[in-house]
């Protein structure tokens, strides 16, 4: 799996994951994901649009960082999951506790509610 990220001017960390979040794929990015998404208070947007497969292990990795951000009063949202991944988020009701957006503007507004600049 591949993980890239950048910090935007609005103070949002955009993390893009790509590949299969199966056992091997998750092991590949788990350490890096946790270090860029959990180790400090952040507003994190995880772009899931290139993740083709989400296993229970991969789901655990996402939940771990979402929990870490909550405890730091930061926030983590998921952006644009593929249909197969969206079904996993729905089936486990994770989508009810970790926000999922399909619109980038909406995702940003959820993270930076005060920011009313047009996107």
């Amino acid at each position, binding site marked *: 799996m591949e993980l890239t990220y950048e910090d935007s001017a609005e103070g949002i960390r955009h993390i893009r994951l790509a590949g*299969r979040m*199966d*056992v091997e794929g998750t092991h590949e990015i788990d350490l890096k994901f946790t270090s860029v998404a959990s180790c400090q208070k952040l507003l994190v947007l995880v772009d899931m649009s290139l993740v083709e*497969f*989400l*296993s*229970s*292990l991969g*789901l*655990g*990795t996402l*939940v*771990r960082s*979402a*929990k870490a951000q*909550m405890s730091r009063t930061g926030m983590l949202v998921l952006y644009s999951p593929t*249909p*197969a991944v969206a*079904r*996993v988020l*729905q*089936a*486990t*009701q*994770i*989508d*009810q*506790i*970790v926000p999922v957006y399909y619109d980038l503007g909406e995702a940003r507004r959820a993270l930076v509610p005060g920011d009313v600049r047009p996107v």
Partner: protein
Amino acid sequence: MSRWFRQLAAEIGLDAVRTDDLELCLNELLANVLNYAYADEAYADERARPDDKIREIRIVAEGGAGDLRVSVEDDGRPFDPQAKPSPEPPGSLDRAGIGGWGLPIVRALASELVYERRGDWNRVTIRTLPTVSLPGSRFNNL
């Protein structure tokens, strides 16, 4: 196993939704057998093995696109994935676990999950039927 399953699914003409969901369920069940079925050494010692077989795992696909069943069989310790009650959906991030999502995923995505204990064998079968997709969570339908 994923590539193998996807090839099989393509051959029999299984639709994309069921292919993705069954692929995931098969992987979760197989990962559980590989990780847990033989992990309890006490059980391995206690059990008398007729020959010197130490473990056997089987993967079986039956049926066709209209009604596909995929089973994972093992001769490890007895484990009924249905016996544990479905965990409550977490409700809040606080209470959400980092592990333990495998069986909830399988229960939610497979149309049917059947466990059989036959002799020394565990057999878990997942079945998929063409379904109308339901809006909202499918946790409730279990």
